[in-house]
């Protein structure tokens, strides 16, 4: 299950939804808004998604994780809109009989989500500037495009 949310991600509800008597391992990942990026003091973040394709591609990533690692369930929610420092921007949870598959599938989901989904992130800095964040795999070619 993959979902885009414009309101706060309910981590406890997501975790509760992953109950399964065959599950011996739950691995979760939360992407949090932090107060610094590449030397800049960050005040808040804004996420923009093209929801129709983000959901299609997100569901595809979840299906791949289930197929490749044989996990019992995988869930991901991603925020849009303005987020404050400390807020949860993305949550991934995976249950499996054993921990190795749970860890690997969880890592797979967040890596693919970050690189494949049409989602963009704008940082607002303490000095009044703002800038779109480039993808990790592009980081060696271009840095922030400041407005």
């Amino acid at each position: 299950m993959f979902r885009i949310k414009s309101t706060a991600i309910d981590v406890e509800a997501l975790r509760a939804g992953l109950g399964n008597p065959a599950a011996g391992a739950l691995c979760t990942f939360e992407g949090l808004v932090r107060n610094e990026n590449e030397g800049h003091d960050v005040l808040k973040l804004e996420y923009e998604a093209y929801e129709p394709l983000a959901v299609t591609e997100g569901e595809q990533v979840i299906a791949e994780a289930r197929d490749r690692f044989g996990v019992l369930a995988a869930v991901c929610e991603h925020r849009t809109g303005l987020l404050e420092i400390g807020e949860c921007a993305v949550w991934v949870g995976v249950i499996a009989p054993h921990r190795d598959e749970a860890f690997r599938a969880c890592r797979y989901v967040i890596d693919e989500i970050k690189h494949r989904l049409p989602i963009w992130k704008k940082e607002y800095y303490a000095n009044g500037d703002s800038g779109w964040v480039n993808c990790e795999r592009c980081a060696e070619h271009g840095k922030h495009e400041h407005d």
Partner: protein
Amino acid sequence: MKRVTVKYFAMFREHAGVAEETLQLEADTAMDVFEQTRPRHGCREPLGHCKVAINDRMVDWSAPVAEGDTVLLFPPVAGG
């Protein structure tokens, strides 16, 4: 010439000043649309860092563009 609707996202939209526009382009592929609209989206990244969809389906840059298509130009993504 083909009539193509182009949608811009994130930094592309901010550069173009519009979220979408319909243009007459001499374009056979998605890549042609991207290159011919560079002054609009202002991309300074290599093409390979960006993504493209036609009519809400992710496609390769070599995908053909037909009259009336909607081409979505995605700057480098940065979710999570």
